[in-house]
């Protein structure tokens, strides 16, 4: 690894005074950034700080309003991704940019194809190079596997292979570890270190402080579109970084208080559920959630959590097993019936499930109760009652919106989520099911939602919390179930759980074997 002086004088990459404005937001406000050859440079910032935007500018996906980009000391204009790639810049995006129905090889080749002649691909040569490249970085991958059938960790590797295949000099990774287990994270870190040692420059984006401290050679912190500080890992700590990032002293843990579990509310026994393709996704889950407790489910995304939750709330028919609510068998009940039984559900994907973006906020606030009094009499709706209650909710849940009549799509992500929460929390509940309730939100919104959840728990609601953020599960839950390949492989106490132990369970299911290689998909 390089020290401050570095082997080369000119930075491999320099961004000067980058400003990028979006309607209503200045996403980047005169940002300066220098990345040296062979350096792992971390970009740290809250949600919405402007990290992705800055990298989109670098990658030609966004055009800056001001500022310039220098590569090896020369000013360049990057007109688009292909331009960026041609200059050796590559990016692993925050959201996977893989085509699920294409094979690993096709995904890697895409855009920079190895050709047999002017028209046709040279698949054999491509396969050879992919396998060879994989070996060099310590994993072996089947180029013919369909990407959609790979686990998230392996998809992440495909993303990295994609960049390596293009001989990236500068590699940007936007929150590459968000969906990985600690063990997978370690493996990816290994790959990154090897790359840096070979002279690649790496920009590593994250808002996980300990990760940044572990991997980075240098850290740039941005807040609200501005650079607020540069640190060396050796000269800082988590509290310092957090304060920089958020702009005030923050309490890094939630005060969840004492829980007082009462009778069993949710009882799941031998539940089996199939996914959209008809494959078993949940394979015999037993769990109990009591009134007044938060039961967290930890697990790497794609291990059956979504299917489990959907089966509980009635969106998916279980293949076997039973769901009981306060002693009553509710297996296979419809979402409407569950809703009537005082079950609320905050879905993971608020754009897909939680909201109808083209509808007014008021309509979204009654999306699950529109048919009930006072919002409707018989089949006739009462717009005035809907409007009235919307105004109340907006106030109570601090939804920042010009009015209740604007379309939900015009709200910011955090406020959209608050709208969902307002709708689902605003009545007496037996059971509250939360799937990734704070994904993509800023600290303030997260805090707000966490407090609301705890309040619900304290009011005697049983809470089932699913999150891919292990930290969130650890901070919030009274008990934690670890989900692996469709099973709950362990249930641990939320207050005493060890992060690494849970991470290992998430990665291996508790068995003494290495993670399954993807090569056989």
């Amino acid at each position, binding site marked *: 690894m390089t020290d401050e002086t570095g082997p080369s004088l000119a930075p491999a990459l320099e961004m000067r005074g980058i400003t990028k404005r979006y309607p209503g*937001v200045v996403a980047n406000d005169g940002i300066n950034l220098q990345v040296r050859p062979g350096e792992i440079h971390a970009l740290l910032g809250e949600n919405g700080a402007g990290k992705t935007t800055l990298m989109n500018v670098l990658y030609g996906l966004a055009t800056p309003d001001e500022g310039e980009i220098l590569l090896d000391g020369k000013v360049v204009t990057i007109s688009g991704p292909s331009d960026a790639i041609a200059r050796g810049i590559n990016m692993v995006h925050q959201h996977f940019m893989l085509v699920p129905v294409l094979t690993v090889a096709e995904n890697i080749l895409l855009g920079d194809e190895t050709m047999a002649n002017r028209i046709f691909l040279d698949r054999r040569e491509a396969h050879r190079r992919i396998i060879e490249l994989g070996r060099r970085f310590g994993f072996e991958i089947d180029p013919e596997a369909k990407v959609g059938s790979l686990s998230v960790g392996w998809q992440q590797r495909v993303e990295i292979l994609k960049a390596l295949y293009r001989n990236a000099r500068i590699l940007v990774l936007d929150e590459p570890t968000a969906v990985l287990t600690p063990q997978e994270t370690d493996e990816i870190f290994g790959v990154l270190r090897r790359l840096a040692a070979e002279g690649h420059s790496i920009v590593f984006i994250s808002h996980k402080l300990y990760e940044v401290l572990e991997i980075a050679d240098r850290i740039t912190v941005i807040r609200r579109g501005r650079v607020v500080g540069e640190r060396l890992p050796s000269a800082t700590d988590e509290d310092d970084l957090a304060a920089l990032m958020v702009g005030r002293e923050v309490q890094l843990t939630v005060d969840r208080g004492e829980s007082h579990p009462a009778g069993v509310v949710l009882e799941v026994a031998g539940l089996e559920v199939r996914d959209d393709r008809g494959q078993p996704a949940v394979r015999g889950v037993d769990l109990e959630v009591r009134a007044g407790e938060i039961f967290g489910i930890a697990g790497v995304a794609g291990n059956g959590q979504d299917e489990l939750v959907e089966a509980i709330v009635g969106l998916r028919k279980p293949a076997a097993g039973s769901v009981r609510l306060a002693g009553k068998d509710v297996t296979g009940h419809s979402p*409407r019936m569950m809703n009537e039984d005082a079950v609320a559900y905050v879905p993971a994907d608020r754009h897909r499930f939680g*909201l*109808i973006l083209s509808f007014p906020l008021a309509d979204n606030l009654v999306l699950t109760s529109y048919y009930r009094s006072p919002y*409707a009499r018989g089949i006739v709706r009462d717009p005035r009652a809907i409007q009235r209650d919307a105004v109340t909710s907006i106030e109570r849940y601090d939804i*920042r919106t*010009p009015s209740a009549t604007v379309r939900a799509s015009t709200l910011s992500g955090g406020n959209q989520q608050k709208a969902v929460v307002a709708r689902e929390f605003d009545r007496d509940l037996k059971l509250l099911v939360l799937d990734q309730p704070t994904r993509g939100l800023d600290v303030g919104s997260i805090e707000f939602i966490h407090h609301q959840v705890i309040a619900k728990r304290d009011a005697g609601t049983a809470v089932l919390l699913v999150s891919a953020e292990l930290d969130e599960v650890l901070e919030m839950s009274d008990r934690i179930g670890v989900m692996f390949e469709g099973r709950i492989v362990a249930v641990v106490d939320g207050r005493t759980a060890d992060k690494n132990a849970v991470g290992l369970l998430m990665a291996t299911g508790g068995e003494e074997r290495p993670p399954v290689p993807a090569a056989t998909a």
Partner: protein
Amino acid sequence: MSAPPSPAPAQARSRRSLGARAWAVLAVPALVVILSLLLGAVVILGSELIVTGRKFDPWLWFTAYAALVQGAYGSTDAVIQTLVYSTPLVFGGLAVAFGFKAGLFNIGAQGQFLVGALGAVIVGVALADAPAPIAIVAATIAGIVAGGIWGFVPGFLKAVSGAHEVVSTIMLNYVAVQLLAALVSGPLKVPKSPSPVTYDVGNAAFPIVIGATGHIGIILAIVAAGFVWWLLFRTTWGFEIRSVGANPDAARYAGMRPKLLIVATMTFSGALAGLAGTSVLLGVSHSMTSSFGTTVGFDSIAVALLARSNPLGVLPAAVLFGSMRAGAGLMQINAGIPVELVDVLQATILLFLVASPVLRRLLRLRNVEAGITTAAPSPGLGAGTAP
């Protein structure tokens, strides 16, 4: 962090004066119609020059448009006839618009129109001598039900197996033509008639309420538009339908039943299209020949698009296209312009509407509404798109 609240567009809108609002709503449609007529004039003159070899008349386009207007509005009878032409377009436009609201493209209004008329004629003939109120109501209901069945089938197939409604309704259009031929030349045929034709519907015919041809279907159409609007925007059922159209996943999450709603929507849409056929049969033709056909089904799509799927917007849109149809006869008489010019005009109107963002940019129009859209981006023409 949430961005500071931007000025509320809704409030801003309500503060604007009535004139400004009228301008905002009407500027683009008016401009679009004018541009289309200009383009139509170019087509007329161009084809005169290049194609027909007639003596060139630089004012032919004016003659044509004057005839179009005169044919549609030249006399009280003409105006009433225009309304008669518009009536099935209102029902058909409502049928298509209603489907759009649920994210469904009912291109089968054509077939549902025929089958609806068939239902009306069967019952109408059977009750030709019954007391008029009974006969009319029964025949109308028969037409609605028949059209509804023809809409139910693709809705059901979509809900159950995911068969895309665009393809299945197109196929059903062909089947409807054959069904009509089989019945009109078979069991429904007047035995003594040399050519296939059914008996008259007698007392089941719609009463004439205005002028010589203005049947009660005209009033029914206005009522239907209001009813559909009410249904869509004032009832829980309409809310569910719009929800399914805008986001089927969220609708399911919210406890609605998208599959059931798809079936119901297609059935209702089919019933409206069936009512279009019924209104023509009971209001205009009173019996059915084997050549009973129509372009209403396809014109209805244009009407619904022009109305931006708004049930109340369907009324003026249908009258616009109905006027063109009504005036086309005189246009042929006075200017020798083929009736197909009307289709050209319809298409250009829609084209300019779709391109209105460009128009607005070119003409630097601000503060005006534009564009036509269905409820949601149309899903791919796939069989697997059922929610």
